[in-house]
């Protein structure tokens, strides 16, 4: 009972927060406080779930049934807890940042913005704790729709076109592939519940498994596999806090989380590695990883560059899932956390630079580090983490992924990982070198750091990139229940 109530509380908190924001929409200070409060309470409750949950993994909690015998059901398991932990802790940081950013840039319709933000987090919680494929799918769609108003927040032509690509791609992949894959599983096994070690054993021929896995991987458009990745750069028309939390953390991580969850709990690691059902996806993900990095190199707009970097990094996680070894799954799960912290810092920095200096292009950043030292130091730390250099958190997840590729005997994937790391350096570090070492082209004397509400969050996440490096042991232990 205790567990069920705490779990429901994690859904209730963002919804109550959203309702309060809607009620208070005329009092800016009040709904800003509610927004932060919602995030704080959510984080507190999620941490409580970490304590409660570990004793009760895979216990289904179902409020009611949806269709016939398929219930709306939730459960706790390590991956979901990890994902909800990442999302709710970064949500708290982002609320601070969002308030600082939105006010500094005089954005309008704030209440609507925060309202949708809360609903999006509600959907993320649903995805994290979903206990069957249908529940997962439902919250996946809620996430798509609740973020649409955030992407199109500015309401102009560019926002409308960006929103079109965003919703169009996410919906067509989810209806066209994801839903069909779910119905296929339902039709051939009459089962949708996530089970430790998966439930598809021996029920389908190998060829069908390949098609099914491909349908799932492409169907989860949020995982950003090429050629269905275009929505992510399109979503960059959104205000930066949205790009930071949703399109570097919540939405894209929801995507790769779905892939991980389906890999582990529907197919099962053993079945996947013995049947080779994921071979095609390994190719696609490797190609996406490299191609997106190459595209990132050509982007001058900082947010667009980061967006393509995200596409590339997501493929690391999909690769980790598709390789289906204990190390690669552990590496993929850790990469969800380390990339989230790193990438949100980078986006925060991009937003801070825009807020303080109104600059959006990499080529305009020359010498700017002298005016904004904290922002650029934070950027450097996060960039190093994403590249995967010790002593930053990203180095561990890449280590495990590399190990996983070698274990699965995909040597060319291991080589691709290394090439991609070099590419990461090539597109992330120019910002650092330009900022610190290039002489300033324009007059930067008037430019100061962004307001403290922006600065504090990005400092926190940058420090976390460093701290997480030392928490590896705990994280690895926490993920152990996946493998035995």
């Amino acid at each position: 009972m205790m567990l069920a109530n705490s779990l429901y509380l994690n859904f209730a908190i963002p919804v109550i927060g959203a309702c309060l924001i809607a009620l208070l929409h005329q009092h800016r200070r009040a709904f800003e406080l509610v927004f932060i409060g919602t995030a704080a309470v959510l984080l507190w409750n999620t941490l409580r779930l970490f304590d409660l949950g570990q004793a009760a993994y895979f216990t289904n909690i179902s409020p009611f049934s949806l269709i016939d015998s398929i219930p709306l059901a939730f459960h706790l398991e390590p991956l979901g807890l990890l994902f909800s932990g990442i999302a709710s802790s970064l949500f708290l940081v982002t609320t601070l940042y969002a308030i600082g950013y939105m006010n500094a840039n005089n954005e309008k319709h704030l209440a609507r913005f925060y309202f949708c933000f809360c609903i999006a987090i509600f959907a993320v919680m649903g995805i994290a704790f979903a206990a069957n494929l249908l529940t997962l799918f439902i919250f996946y769609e809620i996430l798509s729709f609740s973020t649409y108003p955030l992407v199109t927040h500015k309401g102009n032509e560019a926002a409308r076109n960006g929103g079109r690509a965003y919703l169009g791609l996410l919906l067509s992949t989810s209806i066209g592939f994801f839903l069909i894959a779910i119905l296929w599983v339902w039709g051939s096994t009459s089962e949708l519940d996530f089970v430790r070690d998966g439930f598809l054993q021996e029920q389908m021929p190998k060829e069908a498994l390949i098609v099914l896995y491909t349908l799932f991987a492409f169907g989860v458009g949020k995982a950003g596999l090429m050629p269905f990745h275009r929505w992510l750069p399109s979503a960059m028309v959104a205000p930066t806090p949205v790009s930071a939390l949703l399109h570097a953390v919540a939405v894209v991580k929801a995507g790769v989380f779905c892939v991980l969850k389906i890999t582990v709990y529907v197919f099962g690691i053993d079945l996947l590695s013995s049947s080779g059902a994921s071979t095609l996806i390994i190719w696609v993900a490797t190609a996406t990883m490299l191609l997106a990095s190459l595209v990132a190199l050509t982007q001058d707009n900082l947010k667009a560059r980061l967006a393509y970097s995200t596409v590339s990094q997501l493929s690391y996680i999909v690769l980790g899932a598709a390789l289906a070894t204990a190390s690669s799954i552990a590496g993929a799960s850790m990469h969800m956390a380390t990339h989230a912290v790193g990438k949100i810092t980078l986006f925060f920095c991009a937003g801070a630079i825009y807020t303080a200096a109104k600059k959006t292009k990499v080529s305009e950043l020359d010498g700017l580090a002298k005016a904004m030292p904290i922002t650029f130091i934070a950027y450097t730390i996060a960039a190093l983490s994403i590249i995967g250099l010790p002593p930053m958190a990203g180095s561990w997840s890449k280590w495990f992924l590399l190990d996983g590729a070698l274990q699965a005997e995909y040597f060319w994937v291991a080589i691709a990982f290394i090439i991609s790391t070099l590419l990461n350096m090539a597109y992330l570090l120019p910002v650092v070198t330009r900022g610190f070492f290039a002489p300033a082209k324009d007059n930067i004397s008037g430019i100061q750091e962004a307001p403290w509400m922006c600065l504090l969050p990005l400092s926190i996440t940058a420090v976390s990139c460093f701290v997480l490096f030392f928490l590896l042991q705990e994280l690895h232990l926490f993920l152990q229940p996946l493998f035995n």
Partner: protein
Amino acid sequence: MTHHLAILQVVLPLIAAPICSLINHSKACWLFATTVAWLVFAMSLSLFLEVQTGGSIRYEIGGWQPPWGIEYHIDALAAFVLLLVSAMAAITLSAFQRSIAIEIPKHKQGLFYTAFLLCLTGLLGIVATADAFNIFVFLEISSLSAYALIALGRDRRALTASFEYLIMGTIGATFILIGIGLLYMQTGTLNIADLQARIPEISHLHSVHAAFAFFTIGIFLKLALFPLHHWLPGAYAYAPSAVSTFLAATATKVALYLLYRVFYTVFGFEFSFEVLQLHYILMPLSILAIVISSLNAIFQQDVKKMLAYSSLGQIGYMTLGISLLSDVGLIASILHLFNHAFIKGALFMTMACFLFRTPSMRLDDLNGAGRTMPWVGMAFVLGGLGLIGIPLTSGFISKWFLVSAVIEQGHWWLVAIIVFSSLLALIYVWRVVEHLFFREPSAALVANKQPIGALLPFTWIVLLSTLYFGINSDFPVQAAKAAAKVLQ
């Protein structure tokens, strides 16, 4: 006592209709008709509950025993459709008082309510009766009153639309009458149960085959199944808002009921689908309806017309379910009949809300209307999601069953078509959403503060019910299963 309700719920609006024309005062007529509609709803609700617990109800009119007397027969399917029709009638009448007062000339309002009640009588009668000739009579009552209702539209094109419907509808009804005549000639009976018992013996006769053909074309016309659909978009688009809402939610649904009745009950599954193999016609037509109508909907400038084309596509889904010849397919069809009625009803109601302040239903006139009327705009978005079949709306539930049925039969290419048409639905819905929210509203629209009144809360009630049935689908799914069982 309760078994009298079977006839009472048809007779009550029939008697109320002429009284309405005698009252002939707009407000009083509205109050009277609305009360009648709610009473009818209460009756069909108690009939529904009765059928659920006690099995189907047979009522002999005047105590004359069938097959000589006329019999009314309320089984699980009929009770379900009666509930739907009466609920939509009650909701429409309650919600549209202001809208009707504005859209229809004052001296015609009394007659409007009269025609509306007659139309309701006809639709209920078709469903309740177990007599073939009676079906034709009620079909004509509902059709003739529908022609009159449509012709009351403000737009002068309503007259041609109504005339076209009259021509096509009359051909359809005549074909059905010829079918009934041929069967009567061969069997000497009009009672459906009696027909059902006698047809197998004479099913080799050409005249029975001819009757089947006449029924097929007649019902397809009434159902507006592609390619016999041309009368429907104009009729829905130019009719008064209240009429579009009511007809979109009920008229084609009752025609679909007739299709179930004739092909499953009268002729029987074996004769219709195994001997004459109706599904070889039904499936291609359904697919064409789904794809072509959805494509048509994308290119409409008038949103009501777009919704009408979308209805044609949705009818395609319902008939597609039948053509799969499986239990799940039939359940999907009945379920979609119910779910789509509410979704399309809600969408036409949002159009009526907009019409209070916008000059027409053209896309350009709706620019920015979602910003000036956020509640109506939101309602349209949610209804549109139901049309696409997004989870948590009832549209998703029926699509889930339909796609399950298709996969069960292994028709993967059909899955692709359903997905494709869902994406077409996304396009035509989102085109309107972008006009509603991403265009600047005209100055006249911003200045227009005309109150919408009761229509808005009722729109939301219908809409929330579709969301409720999307989250907790027990009621419609169980009812559809019970109804499908009757047909087997």
